């Protein structure tokens, strides 16, 4: 316990010192504004990485890997290829140029100014303000789950404790987005995850031996999850099965593609000085994401071997953690790792949660203040107050979400943190991605096309969540109240169980909203753009789209 307290205290002291340094520099010299952004690419990449990777990725998706197996590694592959390479190399530079040219400082503002539409800016701001608390909530939940396991206290006080630390951090200047603080947090996370993978493989006799032991456990997986399509942790679930649809459509595609349209990540590109700095950040970003998600997923899957071989449990991770997927990683780290490491790991998670939540609250505060309030009321009296009240409201809502989610979804949804993250990522992709790509790359996408695409993407996602995708619709109860069934895509079978309608290998009630909403949003954007008047060359020149 003493080690834990000292480690956490030391960590908070360094964060406080770095925050003070950043504060001092911003107030002492005007030129810092420009010069300060000539950040070392390593700092930029670590900062981006620590914002991208949160407790959700480590605890939530690590737990999902303990359930679904190493197939989740496809998400790591996408995270590196799409979340880093495509995001940095393809979108990063153009975003930076357009953002500067249009003098845009938030993602909704970028879209609004590019398409000359207040509606686009306000609507995007509202989607972020109302949607992001779900993501912030599961990030808080991931951290609280670890505190719960480590300190052996109930979840509610654990959440409160973590919530207060994050709140103090945000209030005391975490929102300033000091990149050095983020980078320090990224470095801590990197050290923590490196030790974790080395210990885990070492404990299980090396890479190949560990995987072989996991492969040998396949019958245990089939015994518990066989009917849902599980075929072992070193095999993909049976194609078209319930597990396959959750793994592929929600966990891999939802998050893998959704990352491209994450508002709090997109704004990071605007703070970079030049395209070259973005290129230089790619190597660190790629390795960082591999070491975060890759390690969490491999360790999550291998935790099954540890718990099964441990006479105290002699069960797979899911059973050992009391059927709480989000508790698997915390339980594994506190049980299998040395005492001193769990203190470091707790600090790593604190770092992961703080760096992500601070940028989330920043995005939500800016959304409600700059993108909604200032756009609706032209004669702005007190924008600072609105942003601050907005941040406070989203903080309270995020805490409430983190508090009630385990109760509402506990029985129906196995991986709450991963699912909550996937919902938000999918919603962002369906609503924003066609508009974002159009903004950067197309002269022909029109204001009408973007508005229609955004509205259709958002509405189809919401409809699918409330009425079709059974994991959420069953828990949200709206479909039950209106249509007397948990999902419109399910029927009562002879055994009295609700099952999904099936067309070929498509299990409709398990298809992720993204799979339907994103294609519809793309098609609507394209069709409406072709039938509406294109922007004039003058406008496009002014907007910085053509030279």
């Amino acid at each position: 316990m003493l080690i834990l307290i000292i480690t956490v205290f030391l960590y908070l002291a360094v964060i406080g010192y770095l925050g003070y340094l950043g504060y001092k520099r911003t107030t002492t010299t005007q030129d810092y504004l420009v010069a300060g952004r000539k950040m070392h690419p390593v700092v930029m990449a670590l900062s981006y990485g620590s914002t991208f990777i949160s407790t959700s990725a480590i605890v939530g998706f690590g737990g999902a890997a303990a359930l679904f197996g190493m197939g989740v590694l496809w998400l790591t592959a996408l995270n590196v290829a799409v979340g880093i390479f495509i995001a940095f190399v393809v979108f990063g530079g153009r975003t930076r140029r357009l953002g500067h040219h249009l003098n845009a400082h938030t993602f909704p503002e970028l879209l609004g100014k590019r398409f000359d539409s207040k509606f686009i800016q306000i609507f995007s701001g509202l989607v972020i303000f109302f949607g992001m608390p779900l993501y912030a909530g599961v990030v808080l939940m991931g951290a609280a789950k670890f505190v719960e396991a480590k300190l052996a206290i109930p979840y509610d006080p654990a959440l409160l404790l973590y919530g207060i630390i994050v709140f103090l951090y945000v209030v005391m200047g975490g929102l300033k987005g000091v990149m050095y603080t983020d980078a320090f947090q990224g470095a801590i996370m990197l050290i923590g995850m490196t030790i974790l993978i080395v210990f885990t493989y070492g404990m299980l006799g090396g890479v190949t031996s560990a995987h072989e032991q996991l492969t040998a456990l396949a019958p245990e997986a089939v015994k518990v999850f066989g009917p849902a399509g599980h075929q072992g942790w070193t095999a993909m679930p049976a194609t078209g099965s319930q597990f396959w649809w959750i793994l592929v459509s929600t966990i891999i595609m939802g998050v893998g593609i959704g990352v491209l349209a994450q508002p709090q990540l997109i704004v990071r590109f605007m703070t970079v000085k030049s395209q070259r700095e973005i290129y230089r950040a790619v190597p660190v970003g790629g390795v960082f994401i591999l070491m975060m998600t890759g390690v969490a997923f491999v360790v999550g899957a291998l935790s099954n071997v540890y718990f099964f071989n441990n006479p105290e449990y002699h069960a797979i991770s899911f059973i050992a953690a009391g059927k709480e997927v989000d508790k698997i990683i915390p339980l594994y780290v506190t049980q299998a790792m040395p005492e001193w490491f769990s203190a470091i790991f707790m600090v790593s998670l604190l770092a992961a949660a703080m760096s992500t939540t601070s940028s989330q609250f920043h995005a939500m505060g800016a959304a409600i203040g700059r993108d909604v309030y200032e756009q609706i009321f032209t004669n702005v009296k007190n924008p600072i107050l609105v942003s601050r009240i907005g941040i406070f409201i989203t903080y309270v809502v995020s805490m409430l979400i983190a508090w009630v989610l385990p109760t509402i979804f506990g029985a129906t949804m196995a991986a709450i943190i991963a699912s909550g993250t996937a919902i938000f990522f999918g919603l962002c992709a369906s609503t924003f991605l066609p508009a974002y790509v159009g903004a950067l790359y197309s002269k022909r996408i029109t204001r009408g096309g973007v508005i229609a695409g955004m509205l259709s993407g958002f509405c189809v996602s919401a409809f699918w969540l409330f009425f079709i995708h059974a994991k959420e619709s069953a828990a949200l109860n709206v479909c039950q109240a209106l249509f007397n069934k948990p999902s419109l895509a399910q029927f009562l079978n002879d055994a009295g169980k609700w099952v999904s309608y099936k067309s070929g290998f498509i299990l409709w009630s398990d298809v992720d909203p993204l799979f339907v909403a994103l294609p519809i949003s793309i098609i609507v954007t394209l069709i409406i753009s072709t039938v509406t008047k294109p922007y004039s060359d003058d406008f496009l020149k002014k907007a910085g789209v053509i030279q």
Partner: protein
Amino acid sequence: MLGIPDPMIWSAYLLCIIFSIVCVIFGILKWNSTDDSINEVEDRQWAEAEDKMEENL
């Protein structure tokens, strides 16, 4: 391969590592690519506006 029988899994395992290596090689090759910094005036304007927004938050 690597104690993993399903090619869909070991290929994901290897791809993660390969993509990361590609990122590293790309970064090294582009280390000295043209510096297309935004012009100083635009950059300063943007930075000042950004700072004002940060203050509001």
